[in-house]
């Protein structure tokens, strides 16, 4: 069971790493907004499922409080990025280039 949890953790970490690599590789800001969401949604989800599996096996009872982080990230990420992209649009309209 702990091996399955560890495999899930590595998969999630790989997704987060790929997302951050996209942050470095993409050329414009609007392209750069996309990759990190891979880490914040699927990466976080996989690591949380791994954590739930591991602690459920460790305590021999269902441990589900990790869902809290999952729900919170799912709700907060779109709000943050929408505000950020709106700010970027506003700034680039006011001061293009630079």
């Amino acid at each position: 069971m702990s091996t399955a949890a560890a495999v899930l953790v590595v998969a999630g970490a790989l997704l987060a790493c790929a997302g951050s690599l996209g942050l470095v590789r993409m050329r414009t800001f609007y392209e750069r907004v996309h990759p990190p969401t891979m880490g914040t949604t699927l990466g976080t989800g996989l690591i949380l499922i791994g954590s739930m599996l591991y602690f459920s096996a460790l305590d021999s009872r269902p441990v589900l409080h990790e869902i809290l982080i999952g729900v919170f990230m799912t709700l907060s990420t779109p709000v943050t990025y929408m505000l950020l992209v709106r700010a970027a649009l506003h700034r680039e309209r006011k001061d293009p280039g630079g």
Partner: protein
Amino acid sequence: MSYELSGTLLWLGQLLLGLAMVFALYRLLRGPRAHDRVLALDTLYVDAMLLVLVHGIEAGTALYFEAALVIGMLGFVSTTALAKFLLRGEVIE
């Protein structure tokens, strides 16, 4: 055997998350504009939160879960405040 394998895998996961933080830090330092830096900071706190979670799995206590939850909440508030600041020039109107 299984314990050692999962230990190695958890170590690998921590390494990958550390690498992800280095990439985000590069974008945070490089810019080129302020909203790029805010986006990099957002990615950085998510990666840090995941790193704390994985460390909690490795340590075998549920204590680190609460730290990760706090990092997630404060990160959301700070990124929203920074985005508001970029949008309006002030945080609280």
